[in-house]
């Protein structure tokens, strides 16, 4: 098989010292990759949770019929529910049974509160399409015609601070990914500079023998690519273990809200690409730094 690249790298390998993994470089890269993978996982998980919240809850409304007279309340609730069912873009209209409301209110007003004459609003839940949700005022008007005591609660409104927080955390996570990538690039630049110093005499001799910048850069690039790949894989594996353990803890909590921070399997593929992207970035930065430095020599 004719593999010129391979035979060239065979020769290259003899030009510089072995002991590739001796320096701190691969470990620095491993630590950065660990943090990168963790923040990326956090970002993906939160983003997923935010999406679950949005599709699950925020297109939902609750209509309250706040009416002291129980008979009038029942009539208005029935009319409002009928009216809602006829509207386009409204689905899953459901009158919340009084027992459910009693159960909800029990801690505050005691059992059977509604039967004892304490006025409790009737509740109707409904899911909206995005289009219907955008025109909430129209729904309010139509329902108000038949049920003057109706008040519409938009779930998106009380979820807004939470989705906002999750959104901020998501962006923060991706910002950390960008920052660690920059730190990785800076570490590679330092490593290349120190390699240039260490091998300065060899580089000069190679130049004087007629070696091109590309030939010399290739020697270092390969080493740094391998270092970065090693560090990337170690960092990724460590982060993967942490993510799996955290996942177990989160499901052990059993909270609906935390449960939303699920981790889609496709995300693992994305995370696994990170060490590769890191190695690619390190190689590119190494090459750019090398060639820049070599150009300044004669």
């Amino acid at each position: 098989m004719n593999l010129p690249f391979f035979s060239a790298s065979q020769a290259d390998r003899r030009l510089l010292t072995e002991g590739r993994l001796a320096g701190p470089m691969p470990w620095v890269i491993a630590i950065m990759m660990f943090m990168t993978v963790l923040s990326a996982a956090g970002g993906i998980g939160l983003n997923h949770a935010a999406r679950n919240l949005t599709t699950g809850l925020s297109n939902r409304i609750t209509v309250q019929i706040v009416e002291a007279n129980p008979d009038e309340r029942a009539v208005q609730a029935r009319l409002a529910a009928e009216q809602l069912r006829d509207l386009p873009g409204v689905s899953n209209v459901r009158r919340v049974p009084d027992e459910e409301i009693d159960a909800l209110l029990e801690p505050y007003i005691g059992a059977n509160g509604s039967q004892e004459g304490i006025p409790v609003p009737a509740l109707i839940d409904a899911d909206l399409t995005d289009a219907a949700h955008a025109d909430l005022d129209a729904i309010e008007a139509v329902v108000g015609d038949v049920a003057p005591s109706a008040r519409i609660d938009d779930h998106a409104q009380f979820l807004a601070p939470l989705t906002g927080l999750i959104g901020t955390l998501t962006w923060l996570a991706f910002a950390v990914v960008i920052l660690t990538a920059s730190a990785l690039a800076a570490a590679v630049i330092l490593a290349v500079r120190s390699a240039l110093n260490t091998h300065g005499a060899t580089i000069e001799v190679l130049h004087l023998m007629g070696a091109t910048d590309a030939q010399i850069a290739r020697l270092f690039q390969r080493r740094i690519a391998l270092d970065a790949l090693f560090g990337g894989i170690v960092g990724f594996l460590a982060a993967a273990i942490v993510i799996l353990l955290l996942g177990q803890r989160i499901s052990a909590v059993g909270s609906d809200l935390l449960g939303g921070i699920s981790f889609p399997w496709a995300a693992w593929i994305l995370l696994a690409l990170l060490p590769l992207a890191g190695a690619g970035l390190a190689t590119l930065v190494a090459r750019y730094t090398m060639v820049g430095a070599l150009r300044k020599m004669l």
Partner: protein
Amino acid sequence: MAKSIAQFENVGLRYGTGAETLSDISFTLDEGGFYFLTGPSGAGKTSLLKLLYLALRPSRGLIRLFDEDVVTLPRGRLPGFRRRIGVVFQDFRLVPHLSAFDNIALPLRVSGVEEKDLFEPVSEMLAWVGLADRSSARPATLSGGEQQRVAIARAVIGRPEILVADEPTGNVDPEMAARLLHLFDGLNKLGTTLVVATHDVHLLSRVANAAMIRIDGGRLSDPTGLLKNPPREPRRRRDS
């Protein structure tokens, strides 16, 4: 009339901002010539050779190599020129972590010779400088004279058109010096132009037809009258 392979015209070299280390250097080297470069320590021999093997650019003046102006040569074309010049550095500059074999193989690898085609010429060269049994030794484990011979082998393995040697016999006994010189003479007879800097006056008398470039205090003197630019006949002189 021999073709010229290198030309210096009013070349000056200044390190940093001090006085000129080399001033008004003009001479022409003929293709296939054998030149000794002499002068007291610190005179500027190594500096002159560095200009010749393209490790430095002059501060002023004109240098032509292989019929091209190399002062204004773009960086990207330097490797091509450098591959046509072999250099024995005064301080050897062997790559410390490479064996004698790999040091000697370096120029061939740089010019892209395949691994399978390396063994024969490198082994031959090792034998030629009497180091066949030290093939895998690292420079640090070689004596000064042995390192020098590795450096010489490395300089000539690529069959350069010009061989520049800076004090190539400084670390060897007179017998080895005579052998190395014989070796240089052999290369010269095969057509390589030789420029050898040396303090060793005994060497000068050993090569028939060698010309001498003498440099003192950064200025060229031309004791043999052969270096004027443009050069005049006769080009070859001296019978030992």
